[in-house]
């Protein structure tokens, strides 16, 4: 895997659940996707479009039934690949991860990953300390707390720490901010941004919150019925709101305002993404008229 080849390359992936039985359900129908070092890629699509199925191909939880999955230079198609090593370097966090905590004490749960990879105790402690601090759960204060007594937001950050403790190169997040209250959502996004800027790392995430996408994503894949129907930077994807609404997808708040303004004849550039840009555009409009 030379320097500039992408960390993840999916080529024409097909996946069907319970293939060959009366309950057969096609989840992916020829999906190709690419993730490069340092990038944040968002996968958006209505419920049931195959987002979660796609994510599970990135760390070998699901092996491609058809097509090729190249992750960090390994072809996940052939079973000889050490998939546990791939899963260490590509950390996947599921939806509502706080439901998957099982150790009684917070520190032990974060240590589950490093212990599975046979690290000695002091290396495990160091990894757990670093991971917990990086999600705003001070090691000394939280390591001996009963997991069940932590708040929902804290338990979700603990679950993220459990994956960060493996020091992954990439993070794959399935709806990271779903169900969090505004404060929890803001702090989680903050930790993700800090984590990504620390070193050359990549993030792949699915979400229904388009403001998160506008904030974080470098590139967006739009998935509908198991097929990629659009791919591009946020400004280009959100520049065509009609297409997204047509597929039951939401829009970032800024885009919603732009659309409402356009509908009333006050034309502002269509690819505005953040509230600041909208506010400045409205300001320009106001003073142009003078």
């Amino acid at each position, binding site marked *: 895997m030379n320097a500039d080849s992408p960390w993840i390359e999916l080529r024409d992936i097909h996946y069907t659940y319970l293939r060959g039985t009366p309950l057969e359900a096609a989840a992916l129908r020829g999906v190709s996707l690419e993730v490069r070092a340092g990038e944040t890629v968002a996968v958006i699509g209505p419920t049931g479009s195959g987002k979660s199925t796609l994510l599970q191909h990135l760390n070998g939880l699901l092996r491609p039934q058809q097509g090729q999955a190249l992750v960090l230079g390994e072809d996940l198609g052939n079973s000889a690949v050490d998939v546990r090593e791939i899963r260490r370097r590509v950390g996947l966090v599921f939806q509502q991860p706080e439901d998957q905590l099982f*150790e*009684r*004490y*917070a*520190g*032990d749960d974060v*240590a589950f990953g490093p212990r599975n990879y046979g690290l000695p*105790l002091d290396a*495990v*402690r160091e990894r*757990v300390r670093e991971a917990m601090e990086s999600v705003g759960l001070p090691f000394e204060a939280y*390591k*001996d707390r*009963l*997991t*069940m*007594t932590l708040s*929902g937001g804290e338990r979700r950050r603990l679950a993220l720490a459990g994956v960060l403790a493996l020091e992954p190169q990439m993070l794959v997040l399935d709806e990271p901010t779903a169900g969090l209250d505004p404060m929890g959502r803001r702090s989680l996004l903050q930790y993700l941004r800090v984590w990504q800027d620390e070193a050359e790392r990549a993030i792949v995430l699915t979400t229904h919150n388009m403001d998160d996408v506008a904030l974080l994503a470098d590139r967006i894949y739009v998935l509908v019925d198991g097929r990629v129907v659009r791919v591009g930077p946020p400004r280009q994807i959100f520049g065509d709101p009609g297409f997204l609404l047509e597929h039951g997808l939401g829009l970032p708040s800024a885009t919603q305002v732009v659309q409402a303004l356009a509908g009333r004849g006050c034309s502002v550039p269509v690819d505005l993404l953040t509230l600041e840009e909208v506010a400045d555009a409205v300001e320009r409009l106001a003073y142009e008229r003078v």
Partner: protein
Amino acid sequence: MTTETAVPSTPVRKIVVSGVLGAVAIFLGWSHLGFIPWIAGAALTIMHVPVIIGAVLEGPWVGTAIGLIFGLFSLLQAVIAPTGPVDVWFQNPVISVLPRLFIGVFAWLTYKAARRISVPWILFMAGVNVGIIAAFTFSLGQSNAAAALFLAGIGLGGVAALTYSALKMEREPLALVLAALVGTLTNTVLVLSAIGLFGHLPWAGLPAIAIANGLPEAVLASILTVAVVVAWKQIETGTRKSSL
């Protein structure tokens, strides 16, 4: 997330907890997650753990109800989706259903009694167990000395380990371990006796199976029961700290 500790056991609570833990027992059986392969192709089951947990948390009625669901399901599974020779015997409700009704009651009784356990009581129980093993070894020794000595060794080792840990552990986890042990042995002993009653297996062979299968299942059940109940009732135990 705070769970009220002293929660009145209303009829709704009894029905729902029985139903949900009954679903766990069914699911463990159906998905075979409840079977752990053991030596010589036999499999240890932990499908009785939800029965013990239900009894400890919500009392004997809930334990019996979950036991009934567990029994009916294992009967149904033996008839519709059999996997091994044992299933032929489990088609008989007296073997698959009746014994399972008692797991919850005995587990609950042990749990209630064990909470008032004291050191002299532990030593007394240890003495009783040693006596039972001695008598058993003596009787089995007539026909097969080697097997008797071997089984006696295991038995004594078990009692010693149990007594030591009983003296060391706190009250609550100890009560849970004993409840799980008694619950599992109830299941093993009653099921095997029913099998013996119907002559599927010679009586002489049953004690060996009971120990070979029952003891590891009891160990598994107690680990699982303690882990779940202590976490659910947020009981601080042991070092009260993570292992880091």
